[in-house]
């Protein structure tokens, strides 16, 4: 299976997941790049985009899976970029290695914007909110009878940095990606609900990286986590952060983590220095 690493920015942020797949199918045809079709009565070009991005989010780390038939992979980005609508840029086309199910975390940059400047105390209020041992929110659900389910956000937040700038507060979040995943909109909803004084006038969401674990990029060898900012605190995906400051990654030994007591053991994985980065920045203004 081949993968196209692409970014989605500017006007393209508002293209929905389904429309985006259709747009790619057409773009392959426009670019004259043959890709594998599905079998069956009504065959169509097979494309798949794991972890649908919410409408309105920008992203620098989207991935599209398909099977390029006879175009040299290095030609694909340029040809696709000439055929895609503004705001979508393909950076690389490569042979996918790691399965999608190992895409366990997503790094989001969420910018809370305040027209009158970030309110006094908002940063620390948000920080302590996210440091709570548990933070339960209602979420819409198609499965539940009531149409709603309760989720605890804390186990799904692997890392949360909060940084105040002049009239924004930036959240650098590493969230569980799937089974279950956490949409950063719910984090912002939690801020609105619990710290009304820190409620932003407007929020910008950007997906920065897909990760295999809170510090390991998923799939692409070249992609590295961006350097960390200050004020890192790490939360265990399986439970509240232990006071000893352990890393929060699922334990490779299996002694902690999922299915166990919900505590992590001590490990130093998280303290590895961040590797060199060569990360696709979101394309600014499209073409």
């Amino acid at each position, binding site marked *: 299976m081949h993968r196209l690493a692409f970014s989605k920015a500017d006007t393209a942020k*508002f293209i*929905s997941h389904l*429309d985006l797949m259709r747009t790619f199918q057409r773009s392959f045809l*426009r670019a004259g790049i043959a890709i594998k079709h599905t079998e069956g009565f009504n065959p169509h070009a097979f494309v798949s985009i794991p972890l649908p991005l919410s409408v309105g989010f920008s992203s620098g780390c989207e991935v599209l899976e398909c099977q390029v038939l006879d175009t040299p992979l290095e030609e694909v980005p340029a040809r696709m970029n000439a055929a895609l*609508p503004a705001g979508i840029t393909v950076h690389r086309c490569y042979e996918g290695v790691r399965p999608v199910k190992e895409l366990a975390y997503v790094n989001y940059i969420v910018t809370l914007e305040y027209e009158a400047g970030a309110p006094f105390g908002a940063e620390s209020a948000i920080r302590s909110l996210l440091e709570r041992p548990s933070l339960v929110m209602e979420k819409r659900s198609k499965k539940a009878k009531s149409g709603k389910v309760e989720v605890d956000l804390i186990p799904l937040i692997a890392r949360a940095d909060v940084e105040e700038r002049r009239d924004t507060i930036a959240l650098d979040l590493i969230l569980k990606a799937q089974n279950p995943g956490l949409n950063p909109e719910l984090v912002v909803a939690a801020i609105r609900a619990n710290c009304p004084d820190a409620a932003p006038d407007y929020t910008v969401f950007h997906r920065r990286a897909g990760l295999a674990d809170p510090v390991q990029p998923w799939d692409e060898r070249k992609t590295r986590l961006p350097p960390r900012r200050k004020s890192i605190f790490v939360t265990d995906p399986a439970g509240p952060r232990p006071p000893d400051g352990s890393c929060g990654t699922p334990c490779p030994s299996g002694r902690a983590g999922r299915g166990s007591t919900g505590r992590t053991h001590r490990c130093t994985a998280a303290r590895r220095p961040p590797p060199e980065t060569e990360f696709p920045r979101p394309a600014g203004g499209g073409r």
Partner: protein
Amino acid sequence: MNRTLEHILPRVQKPARYTGGEYNAVVKDRRSVDVRYALCFPDTYEIGMSNLGMRILYGVMNQMDGVWCERVFAPWGDMEEEMRREGILLYGLESGDSIADFDLIGFSLGYEMAYTNVLNMLDLAGLPLRSEERYGLAPIVVAGGTCAYNPEPLAPFVDLFVLGEGEDVSVELIQLYRKAREECWSKEEFLAAAAQVPGIYVPSLYQVSYKPDGTLDQVIPQEGAPAVVTKRIVQDFDKSYFPVKTIVPSTEIVHDRVMLELFRGCIRGCRFCQAGYAYRPVRSRDPEILLKQGIEACKDSGYQEMTLSSLSTSDYRPLEHLCDGLLEWCEPNKVSLSLPSLRADNFSLGLMERVQHVRKSGLTFAPEAGTQRLRDAITKPVPEEDLLRTRRTAMSRGWPSVKLYFMLGLPTETDEDVLGIADLAEKVYRAWKETTPNPKRGVNITVSTAWFVPKPHTAFQWEPQISMEEYQRRVKLLREHMKGRSIKYNWHDSQTSFLEAVFARGDRKVAQVIETAWREGAKFDAWSEYFDFDRWQAAFAACGVDPAFYANRTREKDERLPWDVTSVGVSKDFLWRERQRAYQAVITPDCRVQCTGCGANKLCPGGKCDA
């Protein structure tokens, strides 16, 4: 992208329709253009982007050096609310710039129920509604499209109307506009000069007076404006612009496919049909050119669906040849071809089958009337035998469903004609039963009736629309006689058709009603989400205008009609003759069988039609 816009878009439905940035959208450098044109469609993005005329004009104008034409659609209610709250003026999708600063604002009018949207869009642009309140040379508000053939209901709001096909006249208009600006003309000077361009109607140059009974008395042209403005046509259809490179929306629209235009006009003269008269004469495009255009358009757009779009596709002489050629390319390239608007009388099933071998979705027929007599009266020559025969073959070959379209309230219609519809549906059902290979599967027969709306420039332009009560009675009558579980009956909502009848043949007095209704919140009247008949009734009452005067009144032969100031090339005498033949239920042969001298030939080079 504008920051405020970026802030509001996450809050609205389907935001992709407000962003622009689609593939093939034309983005020019502001500094390199001297004329900015806002091409407006007074309905949603999904509908406007499906309009071939929009795409053609967009291409034609953007081909011009120094001209940047952008698209503008009516924002849906949620977006409008956000725009008004945040103070965002209506903007062009390509640049995001407010269209109030553009030079020309052109509206495409395809449907009367979009009139309030025209006003709403002007208001959203921050412009005064009335032409006389907009001073200066920019922006000039232009309108064209089928509804412009009776421009009067919008006369106070629009600076000038373009009648007929806009390819050539838009270019001429822009050139004149440039001249006006270079020479510092006033708006009045520009409009007076524009009125001299064939096909341009400047409503403010006509003094209109009424008789005591409310009908038109005199229409006096000023400043040398022509007494009658005749529509423009593209004479050489082979050479005229076709948008091979066209915008591919990033979100789904109504007709999301390549549209190939085989010909303009229609050889038939169905007496109720405005398009049939208004687009005369027929001009076809060479099949080799079409083949090239179709294939190129598919390659360029990545569309995997192509449709042949024309008024009556099966009247295209080299249709088989064209389809063969297209299929030869389409099949290996997995592009599906569809043929809408095939007629039952020369319907070629083999062709249909070859073309739609992927999906046997359903067949559509429009006999329009239930009995042969009435079909003769409207010149819809679909002999019942033909109809049933094709239906029988179609069904035996496994087309699962049939849709039948009719109109209620056609002139001369009697209860017998109404019941004829039920009868026909029943016959179709029986035909299916006799021939179907597997009767257990069942069949879906859908009968739809619309309420007939008499339109200007047709043989029925003098006719009254039957009253709403009468229409409802006929619907009820038909409903009671529509038997059988396999037959489903839908009827069109009566209130919009009534208003359509008022606006279609309205005069300048109707303008006040439209404005009043808009001030009371009317917009998107074609959408049931927004349509409110009570609001319209209140507006008529407030303006002292009786809608029945326009909808339900029989006009006299010598009455001056509001749209007599425009001509589609077909003479009024001819239409009157057609009306009389309708009452005698005499069919008029189509243009291919015999020219019946409608007058449209004068629009052709050499004065000869090539039907």
